[in-house]
């Protein structure tokens, strides 16, 4: 279980670990690209900065970005983006603007869905990542959930496996946040009614998980978890059109929402806002050493950073595609 939601890494300093679970090719890495690209726009006057900490993250995101922008213009729209095949980590720096090195890192581990049904060292590495993560992000392929009477859902989104996996992780204890993120959801969130239908479908399909978490024994300072839903449009301009037969299975086909449409992601910041709200509350709740108190006092870092994070985390959406399924004390406005 995570000792603290903000762990200390000898090389990286303070790290918030996030494990992303979801089928390969659903858009987990694209979500990170959009989140990174949009951050400086959505952060507003808050003096926060998101940076790519390591070169591998920067290079990979750049390559995904090129594909994503081409896809958003309708180029190669049926080809999609080549999915990851291995357990990968992406590291971002988060801190007050201009501060080097940044005060904290966000380490995202991408757990391809295929790994959930396997055993071996990759799976063990995924298990270890989940144990260390205070935040579990469940990426959901929205068209698969919403269309064709969910006939592809069990195979693609693997809700039973995901729920079982999270249940095992939660059994280890600690304070955790589960963020359910429907992706490729542009078609549904275009209207309030569609967003509600999507929310209801998620709620129904992940009911066991939500109920399990809601039923966790609520004890002060003991194991507990919260669950939030945040629908994200990673591309904005492309909407699901239809499933096309491909051999013994199907292929997702997307179309431009309007002629001349281009890359215009929306709400990519929402998962991060919820994660940071959870983090700030957990961070304030932590026990500080004397050295940490002195360092924080000396550099004023703590005050500036927590004020910035607090301001950023205040804008969490809670309706029309966004909802708190299970409340946790760390989800309250800090």
């Amino acid at each position, binding site marked *: 279980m995570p000792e603290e939601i903000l762990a200390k890494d000898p090389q990286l300093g303070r790290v918030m670990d996030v494990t992303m679970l979801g089928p*390969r*090719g659903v858009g987990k890495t694209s979500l990170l690209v959009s989140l990174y690209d949009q951050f400086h726009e959505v952060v507003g006057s808050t003096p926060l900065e998101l940076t790519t900490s*390591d*070169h*591998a993250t920067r*290079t*990979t995101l750049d*390559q*995904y970005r090129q594909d994503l922008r081409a896809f958003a213009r309708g180029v190669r729209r*049926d*080809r*999609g*983006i*080549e*999915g*990851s*095949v*291995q*357990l*990968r*980590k992406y590291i971002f720096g988060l801190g007050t603007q201009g501060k*080097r*090195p940044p005060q904290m890192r966000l380490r995202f581990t991408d757990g391809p869905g*295929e790994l959930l049904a396997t055993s*071996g*060292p*990759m799976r063990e*590495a995924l298990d270890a990542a989940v144990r260390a993560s205070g935040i579990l992000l469940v990426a959901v392929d929205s068209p698969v959930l919403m269309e064709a009477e969910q006939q592809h859902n069990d*195979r693609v989104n693997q809700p039973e496996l995901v729920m079982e996996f999270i249940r095992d992780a939660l059994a280890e204890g600690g304070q955790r946040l589960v963020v359910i993120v429907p992706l490729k959801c542009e078609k549904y969130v275009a209207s309030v009614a569609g967003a509600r239908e999507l929310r209801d479908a998620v709620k129904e399909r992940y009911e066991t998980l939500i109920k399990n978490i809601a039923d966790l024994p609520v004890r002060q300072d003991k194991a507990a978890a919260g669950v939030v839903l945040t629908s994200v449009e990673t591309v904005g301009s492309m909407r699901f059109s239809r499933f096309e037969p*491909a*051999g*013994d*299975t199907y*292929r*997702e086909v997307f179309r431009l929402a309007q002629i001349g449409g281009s890359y215009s992601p929306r709400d990519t910041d929402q998962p991060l806002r919820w994660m940071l709200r959870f983090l700030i509350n957990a961070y304030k709740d932590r026990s500080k050493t004397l050295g940490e108190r002195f*360092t924080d006092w*000396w*550099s004023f870092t703590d005050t500036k950073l927590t004020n910035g994070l607090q301001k950023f985390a205040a804008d969490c959406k809670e309706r029309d595609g966004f909802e708190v399924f299970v409340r946790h004390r760390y989800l309250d406005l800090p």
Partner: protein
Amino acid sequence: MTDPVSLGVTWYFNTAGIGEGDGYRWLSYETHHDPSAADFVLMAPVAGLTLVELTAERNPSIVLARNHDSRFVFYATRLVPPGVPEEGDIKNRRISASVLGVATADGGHGPLVDAAVSALEGDLARSLPLNWTAGSPAVDHQSSSWPMTRDGTASRPQTAGHRPQSVRLPPTSRSIAATALASLSAIDLDDLPPDQILLLDNDALGLEELDRLRPWWAITPLVKEQVTIAGNSKSGDWQQLALVLGLAAFAALVAILLWAFL
């Protein structure tokens, strides 16, 4: 066909087919070897990083190293063999292949070095013993191009040469690295310490990381970043110095107060 076991190397290939059930998976060249063993090699650290971390996610990469347990390993990714289905995988995504070689006996480094030279020269992909029958990948044991038996193995010098020390090359210099690798003697290779990377061709690692890993040859396009990293690191150093001076001043103040009041 040469018996690969006699060369002391186990080969694994990772690729996909066009069908739903044909996602990326490991195939073993030797039918009696468990293909899933490849994952254990991929996750074993070399110089503190796994082979997965030493390769780029999207672009081709090459690693030749001596593992922490002294076995030589060779890993090349994102290769596109000639027979790969043009339509791509189930989602029309381009199919690529990776090859992993593990030396299982003394002297097994020869074929791995040859494969690395071939990869640097851009010839490795067309030598891979893979075919796709009805869209599903399989190892082609009839392939005459595998295992790698380049002339280099036979003509490798038998006396120790000048051991290279952490050379960084631009990506256009793959042929320089290939020539240098091919001319390495068996004695030089035997002398390579465990946990040491011999060759790293990877556009995803920054100079800071390369400096820490100290591969004998690193091929990287990253030249401009050096300035940025130096700048960042300098700024971090100043902040640390300021903190240390501040702490020293604080300690001195406390000492003076204690001396004055006690």
